[in-house]
Protein backbone atom coordinates (compact mmCIF):
# COMPACT_ATOMS: atom_id res chain seq x y z
CA UNK A 1 0.00 0.00 0.00
CA UNK A 2 1.16 3.50 -0.74
CA UNK A 3 1.46 6.11 1.95
CA UNK A 4 -1.57 7.98 0.71
CA UNK A 5 -3.78 4.90 0.70
CA UNK A 6 -2.53 4.02 4.19
CA UNK A 7 -3.37 7.49 5.30
CA UNK A 8 -6.81 7.19 3.77
CA UNK A 9 -7.35 3.80 5.38
CA UNK A 10 -6.42 5.11 8.80
CA UNK A 11 -8.63 8.13 8.29
CA UNK A 12 -11.51 5.76 7.61
CA UNK A 13 -10.69 3.71 10.72
CA UNK A 14 -10.15 6.82 12.79
CA UNK A 15 -13.49 8.31 11.80
CA UNK A 16 -15.25 5.11 12.86
CA UNK A 17 -13.48 4.99 16.22
CA UNK A 18 -13.96 8.72 16.56
CA UNK A 19 -17.72 8.46 16.07
CA UNK A 20 -17.83 5.96 18.91
CA UNK A 21 -15.69 8.12 21.21
CA UNK A 22 -17.78 11.15 20.35
CA UNK A 23 -20.98 9.39 21.42
CA UNK A 24 -19.34 8.46 24.70
CA UNK A 25 -17.75 11.87 25.23
CA UNK A 26 -21.14 13.55 24.90
CA UNK A 27 -22.33 11.78 28.04
CA UNK A 28 -19.41 13.11 30.09
CA UNK A 29 -20.00 16.57 28.77
CA UNK A 30 -23.78 16.67 29.24
CA UNK A 31 -23.53 15.68 32.88
CA UNK A 32 -20.52 17.86 33.60
CA UNK A 33 -22.27 20.81 32.00
CA UNK A 34 -25.12 20.56 34.46
CA UNK A 35 -23.70 19.12 37.67
CA UNK A 36 -20.00 19.88 37.26
CA UNK A 37 -19.54 16.21 37.95
CA UNK A 38 -17.29 13.76 36.16
CA UNK A 39 -19.33 10.60 35.96
CA UNK A 40 -16.99 7.64 35.91
CA UNK A 41 -19.91 5.21 35.97
CA UNK A 42 -20.25 6.23 32.34
CA UNK A 43 -17.31 3.95 31.40
CA UNK A 44 -19.21 0.89 32.37
CA UNK A 45 -22.61 2.04 31.20
CA UNK A 46 -20.93 1.94 27.80
CA UNK A 47 -19.60 -1.55 28.52
CA UNK A 48 -23.05 -2.72 29.64
CA UNK A 49 -24.49 -1.20 26.46
CA UNK A 50 -22.39 -3.57 24.40
CA UNK A 51 -23.76 -6.50 26.41
CA UNK A 52 -27.37 -5.36 26.18
CA UNK A 53 -26.93 -5.13 22.42
CA UNK A 54 -25.30 -8.56 22.38
CA UNK A 55 -28.19 -10.09 24.29
CA UNK A 56 -30.80 -8.42 22.10
CA UNK A 57 -29.08 -9.64 18.94
CA UNK A 58 -28.83 -13.13 20.43
CA UNK A 59 -32.51 -12.82 21.26
CA UNK A 60 -33.13 -12.46 17.54
CA UNK A 61 -31.36 -15.78 17.07
CA UNK A 62 -28.08 -14.30 15.89
CA UNK A 63 -24.73 -15.57 16.99
CA UNK A 64 -21.25 -14.79 15.84
CA UNK A 65 -20.87 -14.06 12.15
CA UNK A 66 -22.83 -17.14 11.08
CA UNK A 67 -26.16 -15.53 10.28
CA UNK A 68 -26.32 -12.63 7.88
CA UNK A 69 -29.42 -10.55 7.33
CA UNK A 70 -30.29 -8.20 4.52
CA UNK A 71 -33.01 -5.74 3.64
CA UNK A 72 -35.87 -5.04 6.00
CA UNK A 73 -35.04 -7.77 8.56
CA UNK A 74 -31.53 -6.33 8.93
CA UNK A 75 -32.82 -2.79 9.39
CA UNK A 76 -35.50 -3.99 11.81
CA UNK A 77 -33.07 -5.97 13.94
CA UNK A 78 -30.55 -3.13 14.07
CA UNK A 79 -33.17 -0.50 14.92
CA UNK A 80 -34.63 -2.73 17.62
CA UNK A 81 -31.20 -3.48 19.07
CA UNK A 82 -30.19 0.19 19.12
CA UNK A 83 -33.54 1.19 20.63
CA UNK A 84 -33.47 -1.41 23.42
CA UNK A 85 -29.80 -0.79 24.17
CA UNK A 86 -30.20 2.96 24.31
CA UNK A 87 -33.42 2.81 26.30
CA UNK A 88 -31.95 0.30 28.74
CA UNK A 89 -28.73 2.23 29.25
CA UNK A 90 -30.67 5.48 29.56
CA UNK A 91 -32.75 3.97 32.36
CA UNK A 92 -29.61 2.55 33.98
CA UNK A 93 -28.11 6.05 33.97
CA UNK A 94 -31.26 7.50 35.50
CA UNK A 95 -31.25 4.81 38.17
CA UNK A 96 -27.60 5.45 39.01
CA UNK A 97 -28.32 9.14 39.45
CA UNK A 98 -31.51 8.61 41.44
CA UNK A 99 -30.11 6.02 43.82
CA UNK A 100 -26.48 6.99 44.32
CA UNK A 101 -26.02 10.61 43.30
CA UNK A 102 -29.16 12.53 44.19
CA UNK A 103 -28.65 12.05 47.94
CA UNK A 104 -25.24 13.72 47.47
CA UNK A 105 -26.51 16.57 45.29
CA UNK A 106 -25.83 19.26 47.84
CA UNK A 107 -22.67 17.75 49.26
CA UNK A 108 -19.68 19.75 48.13
CA UNK A 109 -16.30 18.21 47.40
CA UNK A 110 -15.38 15.00 45.62
CA UNK A 111 -17.99 12.74 47.28
CA UNK A 112 -20.20 12.45 44.21
CA UNK A 113 -17.27 11.79 41.88
CA UNK A 114 -15.89 9.10 44.16
CA UNK A 115 -19.35 7.56 44.23
CA UNK A 116 -19.39 7.33 40.44
CA UNK A 117 -16.07 5.45 40.60
CA UNK A 118 -17.64 3.06 43.09
CA UNK A 119 -20.70 2.56 40.89
CA UNK A 120 -18.43 1.97 37.93
CA UNK A 121 -16.66 -0.84 39.80
CA UNK A 122 -19.94 -2.36 40.89
CA UNK A 123 -21.20 -2.47 37.28
CA UNK A 124 -17.83 -3.85 36.17
CA UNK A 125 -17.93 -6.63 38.74
CA UNK A 126 -21.54 -7.55 38.07
CA UNK A 127 -20.77 -8.09 34.40
CA UNK A 128 -17.54 -9.89 35.29
CA UNK A 129 -19.55 -12.35 37.37
CA UNK A 130 -22.34 -12.78 34.82
CA UNK A 131 -19.93 -13.40 31.96
CA UNK A 132 -17.40 -15.43 33.98
CA UNK A 133 -14.71 -13.10 32.69
CA UNK A 134 -15.16 -14.43 29.15
CA UNK A 135 -14.61 -12.37 26.06
CA UNK A 136 -17.80 -12.75 24.03
CA UNK A 137 -18.18 -13.04 20.31
CA UNK A 138 -20.46 -10.20 19.20
CA UNK A 139 -23.17 -11.18 16.71
CA UNK A 140 -22.75 -9.38 13.43
CA UNK A 141 -25.79 -9.58 11.18
CA UNK A 142 -24.29 -7.32 8.52
CA UNK A 143 -23.38 -8.83 5.15
CA UNK A 144 -19.59 -8.77 4.72
CA UNK A 145 -19.67 -6.06 2.08
CA UNK A 146 -16.73 -3.82 1.48
CA UNK A 147 -15.63 -1.30 -1.10
CA UNK A 148 -12.33 -0.16 -2.46
CA UNK A 149 -11.83 3.59 -2.26
CA UNK A 150 -8.56 5.01 -3.47
CA UNK A 151 -6.64 1.98 -2.31
CA UNK A 152 -8.37 1.82 1.04
CA UNK A 153 -11.23 -0.39 2.18
CA UNK A 154 -14.55 0.76 3.59
CA UNK A 155 -16.75 -1.87 5.19
CA UNK A 156 -20.51 -1.89 5.61
CA UNK A 157 -19.98 -1.68 9.38
CA UNK A 158 -18.18 1.59 8.93
CA UNK A 159 -20.91 3.00 6.72
CA UNK A 160 -23.42 1.99 9.37
CA UNK A 161 -21.42 3.76 12.08
CA UNK A 162 -21.12 6.88 9.93
CA UNK A 163 -24.86 6.80 9.44
CA UNK A 164 -25.95 6.09 12.99
CA UNK A 165 -23.57 8.30 14.97
CA UNK A 166 -24.36 11.56 13.11
CA UNK A 167 -28.10 10.83 13.30
CA UNK A 168 -27.87 10.37 17.06
CA UNK A 169 -25.71 13.47 17.47
CA UNK A 170 -28.04 15.54 15.31
CA UNK A 171 -30.95 14.21 17.32
CA UNK A 172 -29.25 15.25 20.54
CA UNK A 173 -28.39 18.64 19.12
CA UNK A 174 -31.97 19.20 17.95
CA UNK A 175 -33.31 18.12 21.33
CA UNK A 176 -31.00 20.42 23.26
CA UNK A 177 -31.57 23.35 20.91
CA UNK A 178 -35.26 23.09 20.17
CA UNK A 179 -37.22 21.15 22.76
CA UNK A 180 -38.61 22.71 25.91
CA UNK A 181 -36.69 20.31 28.15
CA UNK A 182 -33.54 20.80 26.07
CA UNK A 183 -33.75 24.53 26.58
CA UNK A 184 -34.26 23.95 30.29
CA UNK A 185 -31.07 21.87 30.21
CA UNK A 186 -29.11 24.66 28.59
CA UNK A 187 -30.56 27.25 30.94
CA UNK A 188 -29.69 25.10 33.95
CA UNK A 189 -26.16 24.61 32.67
CA UNK A 190 -25.76 28.35 32.26
CA UNK A 191 -27.33 29.52 35.51
CA UNK A 192 -28.93 26.86 37.71
CA UNK A 193 -30.43 29.26 40.23
CA UNK A 194 -31.98 31.53 37.62
CA UNK A 195 -33.34 28.50 35.74
CA UNK A 196 -34.93 27.27 38.93
CA UNK A 197 -36.60 30.63 39.42
CA UNK A 198 -38.12 30.35 35.94
CA UNK A 199 -39.84 27.21 37.21
CA UNK A 200 -37.37 24.62 35.90
CA UNK A 201 -37.26 21.52 38.07
CA UNK A 202 -33.60 20.69 38.44
CA UNK A 203 -34.24 17.02 39.18
CA UNK A 204 -36.01 16.60 35.86
CA UNK A 205 -33.16 18.28 33.99
CA UNK A 206 -30.53 16.14 35.71
CA UNK A 207 -32.52 13.00 34.94
CA UNK A 208 -32.77 14.01 31.30
CA UNK A 209 -29.02 14.58 31.08
CA UNK A 210 -28.31 11.18 32.60
CA UNK A 211 -30.83 9.48 30.33
CA UNK A 212 -29.50 11.04 27.16
CA UNK A 213 -25.82 10.66 28.06
CA UNK A 214 -26.24 7.03 29.07
CA UNK A 215 -28.37 6.21 26.03
CA UNK A 216 -25.61 7.57 23.77
CA UNK A 217 -23.06 5.52 25.70
CA UNK A 218 -25.25 2.48 25.05
CA UNK A 219 -25.26 3.23 21.34
CA UNK A 220 -21.49 3.58 21.55
CA UNK A 221 -21.27 0.18 23.24
CA UNK A 222 -23.28 -1.46 20.47
CA UNK A 223 -21.11 0.24 17.86
CA UNK A 224 -18.04 -1.13 19.65
CA UNK A 225 -19.43 -4.65 19.35
CA UNK A 226 -20.33 -4.27 15.68
CA UNK A 227 -16.94 -2.77 14.88
CA UNK A 228 -14.67 -5.17 16.77
CA UNK A 229 -16.93 -8.26 16.67
CA UNK A 230 -16.37 -8.92 20.37
CA UNK A 231 -17.11 -7.49 23.74
CA UNK A 232 -15.85 -8.04 27.25
CA UNK A 233 -16.33 -6.67 30.77
CA UNK A 234 -12.99 -4.90 30.28
CA UNK A 235 -13.83 -2.60 27.40
CA UNK A 236 -15.16 0.27 29.51
CA UNK A 237 -11.90 1.55 30.88
CA UNK A 238 -9.85 2.05 27.74
CA UNK A 239 -12.67 3.39 25.60
CA UNK A 240 -14.03 5.39 28.53
CA UNK A 241 -10.72 7.05 29.28
CA UNK A 242 -10.17 7.91 25.66
CA UNK A 243 -13.67 9.36 25.39
CA UNK A 244 -13.13 11.30 28.59
CA UNK A 245 -9.94 12.65 27.07
CA UNK A 246 -11.97 13.61 24.01
CA UNK A 247 -14.42 15.52 26.19
CA UNK A 248 -11.60 17.37 27.96
CA UNK A 249 -9.85 17.99 24.66
CA UNK A 250 -12.98 19.57 23.19
CA UNK A 251 -13.63 21.53 26.37
CA UNK A 252 -15.67 19.63 28.92
CA UNK A 253 -19.27 20.79 29.12
CA UNK A 254 -19.11 21.88 25.48
CA UNK A 255 -21.36 19.68 23.30
CA UNK A 256 -19.88 20.39 19.85
CA UNK A 257 -16.43 20.22 21.51
CA UNK A 258 -17.12 16.65 22.63
CA UNK A 259 -18.07 15.63 19.09
CA UNK A 260 -14.95 17.14 17.55
CA UNK A 261 -12.77 15.88 20.41
CA UNK A 262 -14.08 12.35 19.88
CA UNK A 263 -13.26 12.41 16.18
CA UNK A 264 -9.78 13.81 16.90
CA UNK A 265 -9.04 11.07 19.42
CA UNK A 266 -10.24 8.43 16.97
CA UNK A 267 -7.98 9.80 14.25
CA UNK A 268 -4.99 10.10 16.58
CA UNK A 269 -5.47 6.52 17.69
CA UNK A 270 -5.68 5.24 14.12
CA UNK A 271 -2.74 7.28 12.81
CA UNK A 272 -0.44 6.51 15.70
CA UNK A 273 -1.36 2.82 15.50
CA UNK A 274 -0.40 2.80 11.83
CA UNK A 275 2.56 5.12 11.66
CA UNK A 276 4.14 4.59 15.05
CA UNK A 277 2.92 1.50 16.84
CA UNK A 278 -0.36 0.36 18.35
CA UNK A 279 1.17 0.18 21.81
CA UNK A 280 2.00 3.86 21.53
CA UNK A 281 -1.54 4.99 20.77
CA UNK A 282 -2.49 5.62 24.39
CA UNK A 283 0.84 7.25 25.18
CA UNK A 284 0.24 9.67 22.35
CA UNK A 285 -3.41 10.27 23.20
CA UNK A 286 -2.68 11.03 26.83
CA UNK A 287 0.41 13.08 26.00
CA UNK A 288 -1.79 15.22 23.81
CA UNK A 289 -4.24 15.49 26.70
CA UNK A 290 -1.47 16.68 28.99
CA UNK A 291 -0.21 19.17 26.42
CA UNK A 292 -3.69 20.54 25.85
CA UNK A 293 -4.26 20.86 29.57
CA UNK A 294 -0.98 22.67 30.03
CA UNK A 295 -1.36 25.11 27.14
CA UNK A 296 -5.14 25.33 26.85
CA UNK A 297 -6.55 24.26 30.21
CA UNK A 298 -10.12 24.82 29.05
CA UNK A 299 -9.75 22.56 26.01
CA UNK A 300 -9.66 23.42 22.34
CA UNK A 301 -13.15 24.91 22.24
CA UNK A 302 -13.56 26.19 25.78
CA UNK A 303 -14.78 24.53 28.93
CA UNK A 304 -18.38 25.22 29.82
CA UNK A 305 -19.27 24.90 33.48
CA UNK A 306 -22.41 25.97 35.30
CA UNK A 307 -22.19 29.58 36.45
CA UNK A 308 -21.70 29.78 40.16
CA UNK A 309 -24.11 31.99 41.98
Amino acid sequence: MTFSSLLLQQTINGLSLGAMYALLALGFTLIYGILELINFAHFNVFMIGSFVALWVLQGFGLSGQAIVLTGLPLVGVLVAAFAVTMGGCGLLGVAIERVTLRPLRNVTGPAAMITTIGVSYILFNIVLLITSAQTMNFPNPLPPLQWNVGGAVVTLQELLIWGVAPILMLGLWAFVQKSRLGKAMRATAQDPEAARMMGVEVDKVVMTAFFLGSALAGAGGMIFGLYYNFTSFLIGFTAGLRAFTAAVLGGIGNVPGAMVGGILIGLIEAYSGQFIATEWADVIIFSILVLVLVFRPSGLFGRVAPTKS
Partner: protein
Amino acid sequence: MLLEFKDIDTYYGDLHVLKKVNYAIEEGEIVSLLGGNACGKSTTMKTIMGVVRPVRGTVIFDGKPIEKLPTAERVKRGIAPVLEARRLFPRMTVFENLEMGAYLRARGPEFDEDLERVYSLFPRVKERRNQIAGTLSGGEQQMVAMGRALMARPRLLCMDEPSMGLSPIFVEQVFDIIQQINKQGTTIFMVEQNANMALQIAHRAYVLQTGQVVLSGNAADLRRDPMIREAYLGEMQVPVT
Protein backbone atom coordinates in the same frame (compact mmCIF):
# COMPACT_ATOMS: atom_id res chain seq x y z
CA MET B 1 -53.13 40.95 50.92
CA LEU B 2 -51.26 39.44 48.01
CA LEU B 3 -48.03 38.67 49.86
CA GLU B 4 -47.26 38.51 53.55
CA PHE B 5 -44.19 37.63 55.56
CA LYS B 6 -45.07 36.65 59.12
CA ASP B 7 -42.13 36.58 61.53
CA ILE B 8 -39.73 35.20 58.96
CA ASP B 9 -36.29 34.02 60.07
CA THR B 10 -33.88 33.03 57.31
CA TYR B 11 -30.39 31.65 57.81
CA TYR B 12 -27.41 30.69 55.68
CA GLY B 13 -25.88 28.03 57.89
CA ASP B 14 -25.25 29.87 61.14
CA LEU B 15 -25.61 33.30 59.60
CA HIS B 16 -28.93 34.74 60.74
CA VAL B 17 -29.95 37.02 57.86
CA LEU B 18 -33.66 37.82 58.18
CA LYS B 19 -34.77 38.35 61.77
CA LYS B 20 -38.48 38.11 62.51
CA VAL B 21 -39.32 40.03 59.37
CA ASN B 22 -42.87 41.06 58.50
CA TYR B 23 -44.08 42.49 55.20
CA ALA B 24 -47.59 42.93 53.86
CA ILE B 25 -48.16 43.82 50.25
CA GLU B 26 -51.57 44.60 48.80
CA GLU B 27 -52.62 43.64 45.32
CA GLY B 28 -51.90 46.52 42.95
CA GLU B 29 -49.18 48.19 45.01
CA ILE B 30 -45.60 49.09 44.25
CA VAL B 31 -43.68 48.42 47.44
CA SER B 32 -40.03 49.24 47.71
CA LEU B 33 -37.49 47.54 49.96
CA LEU B 34 -34.62 49.80 50.96
CA GLY B 35 -31.50 49.06 52.89
CA GLY B 36 -27.73 49.07 52.85
CA ASN B 37 -25.47 46.34 51.53
CA ALA B 38 -25.79 42.88 53.00
CA CYS B 39 -28.86 43.68 55.07
CA GLY B 40 -30.91 40.87 53.55
CA LYS B 41 -32.74 42.44 50.59
CA SER B 42 -31.79 39.76 48.08
CA THR B 43 -32.38 37.14 50.75
CA THR B 44 -35.93 38.48 51.04
CA MET B 45 -36.41 37.90 47.31
CA LYS B 46 -34.90 34.43 47.50
CA THR B 47 -37.17 33.59 50.41
CA ILE B 48 -40.20 34.63 48.35
CA MET B 49 -39.04 32.52 45.41
CA GLY B 50 -38.23 29.54 47.61
CA VAL B 51 -34.58 29.32 46.67
CA VAL B 52 -33.88 29.84 50.35
CA ARG B 53 -36.24 28.39 52.96
CA PRO B 54 -37.06 30.27 56.14
CA VAL B 55 -36.34 28.44 59.36
CA ARG B 56 -39.30 30.03 61.13
CA GLY B 57 -42.33 31.98 60.04
CA THR B 58 -44.87 31.91 57.26
CA VAL B 59 -44.95 33.34 53.75
CA ILE B 60 -48.50 33.81 52.53
CA PHE B 61 -49.32 34.37 48.89
CA ASP B 62 -52.89 34.99 47.86
CA GLY B 63 -54.17 33.73 51.20
CA LYS B 64 -52.22 30.46 51.26
CA PRO B 65 -48.95 29.57 52.95
CA ILE B 66 -46.24 28.92 50.35
CA GLU B 67 -43.04 28.67 52.38
CA LYS B 68 -42.90 24.90 51.93
CA LEU B 69 -43.71 24.88 48.22
CA PRO B 70 -41.05 24.26 45.59
CA THR B 71 -40.00 27.23 43.48
CA ALA B 72 -41.74 25.95 40.35
CA GLU B 73 -45.07 25.84 42.17
CA ARG B 74 -44.64 29.44 43.31
CA VAL B 75 -43.90 30.52 39.75
CA LYS B 76 -47.03 28.67 38.64
CA ARG B 77 -49.09 30.57 41.20
CA GLY B 78 -47.93 33.89 39.82
CA ILE B 79 -44.64 35.05 41.32
CA ALA B 80 -41.83 35.99 38.95
CA PRO B 81 -38.39 37.42 39.65
CA VAL B 82 -36.24 40.06 38.02
CA LEU B 83 -32.96 38.95 39.49
CA GLU B 84 -30.14 41.02 40.88
CA ALA B 85 -27.58 41.68 38.10
CA ARG B 86 -30.15 40.47 35.48
CA ARG B 87 -28.87 36.90 35.39
CA LEU B 88 -29.92 36.23 31.81
CA PHE B 89 -28.93 32.91 30.30
CA PRO B 90 -25.85 34.31 28.59
CA ARG B 91 -25.45 31.81 25.76
CA MET B 92 -29.11 31.70 24.83
CA THR B 93 -30.77 34.17 22.48
CA VAL B 94 -32.96 36.99 23.72
CA PHE B 95 -36.01 35.13 22.45
CA GLU B 96 -34.97 31.93 24.23
CA ASN B 97 -34.56 33.91 27.43
CA LEU B 98 -38.10 35.18 27.02
CA GLU B 99 -39.28 31.63 26.39
CA MET B 100 -37.61 30.54 29.63
CA GLY B 101 -39.69 33.14 31.43
CA ALA B 102 -42.79 31.35 30.16
CA TYR B 103 -41.32 27.92 30.92
CA LEU B 104 -44.32 26.66 32.88
CA ARG B 105 -46.90 28.02 30.48
CA ALA B 106 -48.24 26.45 27.32
CA ARG B 107 -47.61 27.93 23.89
CA GLY B 108 -50.62 29.52 22.31
CA PRO B 109 -52.50 32.79 21.98
CA GLU B 110 -51.69 33.85 25.56
CA PHE B 111 -47.98 33.37 25.00
CA ASP B 112 -48.14 35.38 21.77
CA GLU B 113 -50.10 38.10 23.52
CA ASP B 114 -47.51 38.37 26.28
CA LEU B 115 -44.70 38.39 23.76
CA GLU B 116 -46.38 41.28 21.94
CA ARG B 117 -46.79 43.08 25.24
CA VAL B 118 -43.09 42.68 26.05
CA TYR B 119 -42.12 43.81 22.56
CA SER B 120 -44.32 46.88 22.80
CA LEU B 121 -42.93 47.80 26.24
CA PHE B 122 -39.40 47.20 24.99
CA PRO B 123 -39.12 47.73 21.22
CA ARG B 124 -35.38 47.28 21.61
CA VAL B 125 -35.90 43.73 22.85
CA LYS B 126 -37.86 42.90 19.72
CA GLU B 127 -35.05 44.29 17.56
CA ARG B 128 -32.50 42.17 19.40
CA ARG B 129 -34.55 39.00 19.74
CA ASN B 130 -32.06 36.81 17.88
CA GLN B 131 -28.96 38.19 19.59
CA ILE B 132 -27.08 36.09 22.15
CA ALA B 133 -28.10 37.56 25.51
CA GLY B 134 -24.57 37.69 26.90
CA THR B 135 -23.58 40.16 24.18
CA LEU B 136 -26.27 42.75 25.03
CA SER B 137 -25.43 45.99 26.80
CA GLY B 138 -26.29 46.20 30.48
CA GLY B 139 -29.35 48.31 29.79
CA GLU B 140 -30.60 45.94 27.12
CA GLN B 141 -30.05 43.03 29.48
CA GLN B 142 -32.18 44.74 32.08
CA MET B 143 -35.02 45.10 29.56
CA VAL B 144 -34.77 41.42 28.68
CA ALA B 145 -34.71 40.47 32.35
CA MET B 146 -37.92 42.42 32.89
CA GLY B 147 -39.47 41.01 29.73
CA ARG B 148 -38.52 37.51 30.78
CA ALA B 149 -40.30 37.96 34.10
CA LEU B 150 -43.38 39.36 32.38
CA MET B 151 -43.54 36.29 30.15
CA ALA B 152 -44.61 34.36 33.25
CA ARG B 153 -47.69 36.63 33.38
CA PRO B 154 -47.05 37.17 37.08
CA ARG B 155 -49.38 38.64 39.66
CA LEU B 156 -46.38 39.62 41.75
CA LEU B 157 -43.13 40.82 40.24
CA CYS B 158 -40.14 40.67 42.60
CA MET B 159 -37.44 42.98 41.33
CA ASP B 160 -33.95 43.01 42.81
CA GLU B 161 -32.20 46.32 42.07
CA PRO B 162 -33.56 46.97 38.58
CA SER B 163 -31.59 50.21 38.32
CA MET B 164 -28.21 48.74 39.21
CA GLY B 165 -25.47 49.81 36.83
CA LEU B 166 -27.72 51.83 34.52
CA SER B 167 -27.19 55.39 33.34
CA PRO B 168 -29.51 58.02 34.86
CA ILE B 169 -31.62 58.37 31.72
CA PHE B 170 -32.00 54.67 31.50
CA VAL B 171 -32.92 54.42 35.17
CA GLU B 172 -35.74 56.82 34.49
CA GLN B 173 -36.98 54.73 31.58
CA VAL B 174 -36.88 51.59 33.67
CA PHE B 175 -38.84 53.22 36.46
CA ASP B 176 -41.39 54.53 33.95
CA ILE B 177 -41.89 51.06 32.64
CA ILE B 178 -42.20 49.63 36.14
CA GLN B 179 -45.02 52.10 36.71
CA GLN B 180 -46.66 51.10 33.44
CA ILE B 181 -46.45 47.42 34.32
CA ASN B 182 -47.99 48.19 37.68
CA LYS B 183 -50.83 50.17 36.08
CA GLN B 184 -51.54 47.18 33.85
CA GLY B 185 -52.30 45.24 37.03
CA THR B 186 -49.09 43.63 38.29
CA THR B 187 -48.12 44.06 41.93
CA ILE B 188 -44.49 45.01 42.39
CA PHE B 189 -42.09 44.36 45.26
CA MET B 190 -38.85 46.07 44.44
CA VAL B 191 -35.45 46.12 46.11
CA GLU B 192 -33.66 49.38 45.39
CA GLN B 193 -30.49 51.19 46.39
CA ASN B 194 -31.67 54.21 44.47
CA ALA B 195 -33.99 55.29 47.27
CA ASN B 196 -34.76 58.62 45.70
CA MET B 197 -36.18 57.14 42.52
CA ALA B 198 -37.76 54.21 44.30
CA LEU B 199 -39.67 56.45 46.69
CA GLN B 200 -40.96 58.48 43.79
CA ILE B 201 -42.77 55.59 42.16
CA ALA B 202 -43.50 53.35 45.16
CA HIS B 203 -46.69 53.57 47.16
CA ARG B 204 -45.04 52.22 50.28
CA ALA B 205 -41.63 51.11 51.42
CA TYR B 206 -39.85 49.04 54.03
CA VAL B 207 -36.40 49.80 55.36
CA LEU B 208 -34.26 46.84 56.29
CA GLN B 209 -31.23 47.11 58.53
CA THR B 210 -29.09 44.05 59.34
CA GLY B 211 -32.03 41.79 58.74
CA GLN B 212 -34.68 43.71 60.62
CA VAL B 213 -37.42 46.01 59.39
CA VAL B 214 -36.61 49.29 61.13
CA LEU B 215 -39.04 51.54 59.32
CA SER B 216 -42.02 51.26 57.01
CA GLY B 217 -44.74 53.45 55.67
CA ASN B 218 -46.00 55.53 52.80
CA ALA B 219 -43.38 56.52 50.32
CA ALA B 220 -44.29 60.17 50.64
CA ASP B 221 -43.86 60.08 54.43
CA LEU B 222 -40.59 58.20 54.18
CA ARG B 223 -39.18 60.80 51.83
CA ARG B 224 -39.62 63.34 54.58
CA ASP B 225 -38.27 61.09 57.30
CA PRO B 226 -35.03 62.52 58.68
CA MET B 227 -33.41 59.13 59.10
CA ILE B 228 -34.18 58.17 55.50
CA ARG B 229 -33.01 61.51 54.21
CA GLU B 230 -29.73 61.14 55.98
CA ALA B 231 -29.05 57.47 55.37
CA TYR B 232 -30.49 56.81 51.93
CA LEU B 233 -31.22 60.04 50.14
CA GLY B 234 -27.85 61.49 51.14
CA GLU B 235 -26.75 64.22 48.82
CA MET B 236 -29.74 63.77 46.53
CA GLN B 237 -31.98 66.82 46.29
CA VAL B 238 -35.40 65.85 47.50
CA PRO B 239 -38.08 68.50 47.43
CA VAL B 240 -39.79 68.68 50.79
CA THR B 241 -43.45 69.30 50.33
